[in-house]
């Protein structure tokens, strides 16, 4: 294993990943090459990088929705060979079932896991409360605002109780105000659940605010450029307070410059 030392609280190991796919014009595109990193249990790792640097591919590889041509991903010490309920994904396009209500969508993972009805209802009710969607249980996705749909997608993934949560630009499609609320929700929920989270974003702001560490990717083909620690406990993360926090602003500038250097 190159440059990776696995310990008991290592949750995800990416080891020498190389991934290429065919574009719509059938041209081979190398999305990722020689990508190795680790994610610790309970950590929130944010991945930033220029467009097309393979951030989304990285999520697909960990989720098992795509297979690398070289290298492998280990989750809980086992090589990923396909998708599974232990790795939940919050997709950029959300992927809520239009024919299921809020309750039906949140409970889908439990339904698939054949959790008995009574227990399922209990868990669903708990997550509806957690995301503040009480009263909307029987609504269909098209009746919800963007932020509400986003919360339902998050709750659906959480309710299936994965050990790892993968989030692909989850807040890209909502307005700025809603985004801040959702980010705070995510911090709170991550502390409540202790999930290991990998969150891909194109926003340095978001990455610095949410991440325990921020992984910067190079432009395509994506490699790991550097991983930057954000040594601020999650409970102390507050936009207003951090706006005037010198060390935090210095980190933000550092990450911004690192990403900007990859833009050309």
């Amino acid at each position, binding site marked *: 294993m190159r440059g990776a030392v696995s310990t008991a609280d290592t949750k995800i190991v990416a080891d020498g990943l190389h991934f290429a796919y065919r574009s719509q014009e059938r041209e081979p595109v190398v999305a990722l090459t020689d990508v190795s990193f680790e994610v610790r249990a309970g950590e929130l790792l944010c991945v930033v990088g220029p467009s097309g640097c393979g951030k989304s591919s990285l999520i697909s590889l960990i989720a098992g929705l795509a297979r690398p041509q070289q290298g492998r991903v280990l989750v809980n010490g086992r090589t990923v060979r396909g998708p599974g309920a232990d790795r939940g*994904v919050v997709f950029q396009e959300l992927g809520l079932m239009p024919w299921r209500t809020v309750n039906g969508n949140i409970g889908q993972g439990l339904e698939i896991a054949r959790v008995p009805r009574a227990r399922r209802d209990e868990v669903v009710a708990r997550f509806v409360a957690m995301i503040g969607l009480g009263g909307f249980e029987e609504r269909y996705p098209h009746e919800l605002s963007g932020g509400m749909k986003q919360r339902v997608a998050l709750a659906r993934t959480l309710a299936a109780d994965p050990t790892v949560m993968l989030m692909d630009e989850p807040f890209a499609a909502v307005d700025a105000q809603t985004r801040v609320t959702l980010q705070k929700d995510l911090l709170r929920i991550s502390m409540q659940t202790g999930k290991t989270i990998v969150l891909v974003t194109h926003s340095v702001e978001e990455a610095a605010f949410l991440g325990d560490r921020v992984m910067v990717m190079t432009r395509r083909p994506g490699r790991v450029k550097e991983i930057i620690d954000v040594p601020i406990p999650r409970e102390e993360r507050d936009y207003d307070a951090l706006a005037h926090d010198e060390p935090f602003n210095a980190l933000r500038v550092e990450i911004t410059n690192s990403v900007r250097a990859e833009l050309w």
Partner: protein
Amino acid sequence: MRSLRNPEKLLGVLPFAVLGLVWWLVTATGVVHRNVLAGPPEVWRATTDLASRGLLQDDIVTSLLRLVLAMAVSLVLGVGLGLLAGLNRPVSDFLLPLVSFFNSISGIAWIPLAIVWFGLGTVTVTFVLVNSIFFLIFFNTVLGVRSVPAVLENAVKTLGGGRRELVLQVYLPGALPFIMSGIRGGFGFGWRALIAAELTAATSGLGYLIYNASNYARGDQILAGIIVIGALWIVIDMAVLAPIERRTVQRWGTVRQV
């Protein structure tokens, strides 16, 4: 009753009133002779006469049962094979040319052969109907399955779903708006093919009622049968098909703008 309070719906009733009025005028004034075109009073009498003897009801039930039977067979075959073809490239490459070939042949073209195979009656009529309905449902199912966004499939996979869950929780409901429009169109195609088939290949049903009436030169009964056929269709579409669509795909917000 709600529709009567709705001016737009009322506008749809108006042409029927105009048509009825013209019909009544040309027959009552003798512009068109009664032996050529029976007037509304005669047709009404023929209808009530057929109904009082129970003949009309029997033929309606027979025809509707045949339609429902053919729809059930077509649904099972069409959705089943449509799912297979929609989810499997090789299967669709294998099936589509064949299905296209048979689709180009009007269902009623099979009537002569079907009579030779199955004689006169429900089997022949159903065979012809399935040939009219199946293709519509099959093609709509294939199209519907292919229209399901990949992210829904990925979502269910990452929730731990396998093949079974993908079909039941993603592809089938995802294809349902298309399947529904296939069913609706299929009932329309089937209803027309049904009457055509019953004209020649059956000894009961509304088509046979018309055919039989012509043997006795009963223009009033022919018109009665035709009006019942058209009216029944409107009832089926408004009372059965539209509500199903409202309760499912419209409520999900997945109706496609075609």
